[in-house]
C-alpha cells in the first residue's frame, strides 16, 4: 500500500512542482504528474533520459521534498546480491568466534550484518527513499533480482528469515537507455522520459543552480547550448554542463576576460570530447554572438 505519510505531502501535481522548486529543482508539469502518480499509486518511478538531464537530481529533490534520506544504489555490470542486499561481516564473525572461546555466540546477530541499500530501505521505509541509479548498466541477472524485490519488498536471509517492509518504500530508478530494460520492469513502474528543457526553462535552471550568474548570462548560455545540442555531436552537453559553463564563464569574466571571450575560454567544461570540440570550434564565436544578441 502507498505510504500514508507521503500522501499528506503530495496532494497534487502542482504541490509537487512547488515543493520541488523549494528544493531548487524545476520540474515540468509532466514530471510532476509522474512523481505524484508514483507516490500515490505506490509504484516505483522509472526515469529515463540522456545523460545530464537531471535524473539523479530529481531523485535527490524528491527525497528532500519528502524530508527523507536518499539511499543510492549505483549499478554496474556484475553488481550482485552481496552489493545490493546484504553481506555478513566475516572478519568480525571470525574474531567473535575466537573471542567467545567456549561460550555460545550468535554469529548471525545484527552486529555482523552489513545492510546494503535495498536492506537499508526495507528496514526504515518511512525515513528513506531508494534510488537505483543507472540500472541499464547492470546485467540481466541483477534486473531479475531487482524485479523480485520491487514486487514483494522483502528480502530472505537464510540465517535470519524474511525481512519485510512495514510500508511500501518509495523507489526511483534511473536509466540512460544504453540498453532496453526488461519489459516486466517497465510494466511495474510509473514511467517518465526526461528530455532536454527549452531555452527559457534551462535559463531558469541555470539561475537557480548557480548563485551569482547574471540573468543575461544564463539566457545566453541556454540559447547557445540549445544551438550546440542541435549539432551532430558524439556527446551533446547536458544541463549539468550548461550550468558549469555559465559558472565558469562568470568566474573568467570577473577575472578580467570580456564577455564573448569568457564563453569561448570556458568551453572545456561544456564540451568534453576532442572531436566535438574541433567540429564546433570554428562556429563557436558566431553561436555565442547570436546567443548574446
Amino acid at each position, binding site marked *: 500500500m502507498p505510504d500514508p505519510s507521503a500522501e499528506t505531502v503530495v496532494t497534487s*501535481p502542482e504541490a509537487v512542482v512547488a515543493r520541488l522548486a523549494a528544493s531548487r529543482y524545476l520540474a515540468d*508539469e*509532466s514530471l510532476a*504528474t*509522474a512523481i*505524484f*502518480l*508514483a507516490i*500515490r*499509486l505506490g*509504484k516505483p518511478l*522509472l526515469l*529515463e533520459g*540522456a545523460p545530464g538531464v537531471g535524473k539523479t537530481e530529481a531523485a535527490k529533490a524528491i527525497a528532500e521534498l519528502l524530508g527523507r534520506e536518499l539511499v543510492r544504489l549505483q549499478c*554496474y*555490470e*556484475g*553488481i*550482485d546480491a*552481496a552489493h545490493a542486499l546484504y553481506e*555478513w561481516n*566475516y*572478519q568480525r*564473525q*571470525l574474531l567473535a*568466534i575466537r573471542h567467545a572461546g567456549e561460550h555460545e555466540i550468535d*554469529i548471525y546477530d545484527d552486529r555482523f550484518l552489513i545492510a546494503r541499500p535495498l536492506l537499508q530501505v526495507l528496514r526504515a521505509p518511512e525515513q528513506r527513499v531508494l534510488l537505483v541509479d543507472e540500472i*541499464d548498466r547492470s546485467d*540481466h541477472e541483477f*534486473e*531479475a533480482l531487482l*524485479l523480485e524485490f520491487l514486487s514483494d519488498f522483502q528480502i530472505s536471509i537464510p540465517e535470519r528469515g524474511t525481512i519485510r517492509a512495514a510500508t511500501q518504500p518509495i523507489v526511483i530508478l534511473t536509466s*540512460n*537507455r*544504453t*540498453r*532496453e530494460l*526488461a*519489459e*516486466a520492469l*517497465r*510494466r*511495474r*513502474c*510509473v*514511467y*517518465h*522520459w526526461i528530455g532536454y528543457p527549452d531555452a527559457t526553462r534551462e535559463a531558469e535552471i541555470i539561475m537557480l543552480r548557480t548563485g551569482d550568474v547574471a540573468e543575461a548570462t544564463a539566457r545566453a548560455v541556454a540559447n547557445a547550448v540549445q544551438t550546440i545540442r542541435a549539432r*551532430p555531436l*558524439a556527446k551533446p552537453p547536458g544541463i549539468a554542463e550548461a550550468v558549469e559553463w555559465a559558472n565558469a564563464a562568470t568566474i573568467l569574466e570577473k577575472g578580467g576576460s570580456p564577455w564573448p571571450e569568457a564563453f569561448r575560454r570556458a568551453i572545456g567544461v561544456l564540451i568534453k570530447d576532442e*572531436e566535438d570540440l574541433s567540429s564546433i570550434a570554428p562556429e563557436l564565436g558566431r553561436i555565442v554572438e547570436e546567443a548574446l544578441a
Partner: protein
Amino acid sequence: MSRDLTDPFSPFTGRRCPEGADEGQRHDGQKVALPLTCLPASGVEPPVSTRPSDPRERGEESLPRAAAPLLGFARLLRRCGFAIAPQQISSFMQAITLLGPRSMADIREAALATLAPSPDRRDEFETHFRSYFYGNGAPAIEGESDEETRIKDDRGMREEENQTTRQEKGGELSSAIEQLSSRDFQLDSDSLAPFRRKLASALPARRSFRTIRTRSRGTLDLRRSLSEIVSADGDIPSPLLRRRQTIPRKLLLLIDVSGSMKLHTADYLRLAHAAVQGAGRAEVFTFGTRLTRITSALRIRDRGQALARAAAQVDDWDGGTRMGPTLLAFLSVPRFSAFARGAAVVILSDALERGDHAELETAMRRLSARAFRLSLATPLAGDPRFRPATAALRAVLPVLDDLFDGSSVKSLTDFILSLARPAPAAAAIWKGVS
C-alpha cells in the same frame, strides 16, 4: 525476462492494425462526444476494486461506463503493437482517478506515465492519442525525412514485418526472399555447423565482475569459508577460493547489403545466423542506404525461417551504399553504440563508399575507439592483386585492426574463430604488401 519482447507469442504483443481499419469503425459513433465529458469528475472507481471476485463475471460490464473509452484507448495501442499489460491498464485508470481528471492533459500525462510508450515511438503514441480522444481523423504516421539515415529496430515491430511478408507476394521483397532461400538450398550448409559449435569458446574473453568458485589461484571466499568453519565447529579446513570469471566478449556483425555486395549477402546472412545461434551475445545489423537490426529475426533456430524473416525486414537490398552515414547513425543510438563497447566488431563490406569518405572515416574512428577489435572483411581481398588503394580504404586503414578476405565463408569463419588470437594491426600487414 529480456526475452519478453522478442518472444513472438508473448501475450502482450498486439497485432498491428491494418492502416486505420478499426479507426474508421470507432469514429462513426464517437467522433462527436469527447470521452472526457462522460467521465464523472472524480467518481471513476479504480477498476481493481470494482471487479467481482468471480473470474467468470469479471468482464467489462462491471466497469463504470465512463471508463470504457479509456480501456478502448489501451486496446487500440495494443492492437498497434505497443506492449501493454493488464496491470498497466488498471494503473492508468487509477492514475486518472487520482488526477481528477481536470483536463485532457491529465489523461495524456496519466497515459504517458503508466502505459509507458518507448521514447522511440512517442510521436506515434501522440498521434494515436490525438486521433482517439480528439477524433481528428485516422492517425497519419509520417515517414521520416530522407535527409536522415533511417534506422529500423526490429523490436516491437515484429507484427508489422510479418504483415509485409504476407502482403507483398509479387513485390521486390519476396523476390529477395526467394533468392535467398534458393541459394541456401544450393550451398553446402554443413560448413557452418562446426563454426557454430566452436564460436562461443573461440571468441575473445574478458574478465567479468562476477566471481566463480575455484580450487586454485583466487582470493579467499570468506562467505563459504566461514560457513565451513561453523559447520566444522571452529576448525579451519583448507581455505576456499573464488576468482573472477572470464566471459566471451560480444560479437557485432555489420553486413553491407548494397548492390556491389550482391553476390555475398546470402552467405553473410547464413554466417550471421550461425553466429547468433552460437555466440552468447551477438548482434547483427545490415546497412546499405539504411540501418536495420535483424538480430531477433536471426534468433529463430530454423535457418530458412530466420533468413526469410530477416530478408523481409531489410528494405534496402542491392541498393547504393551510404556506409559513413549509416555507421554514424548506428553510433548515434545509445544502446547500439553501447553494445559496440568492448565488442569484437566485424564489418562485412567492400567499403566502396561513393562520394566523400570523411563521414566514413569519422564513423570508423569512433567505432574503433569503442570496439575491442575492429575488423573489415572485404570480398575484394580474395583477389591476390588486391591492395587497399581506394581513398576510403586508405583513410580507414590506420584505425582497423584487421583487413581480411571476405570472399568465402571458409575464410570468414576461420577469421572469426581466430579473433581471440593477437594479430598485427591491419596497417602493418598491408604496408608490407604494397
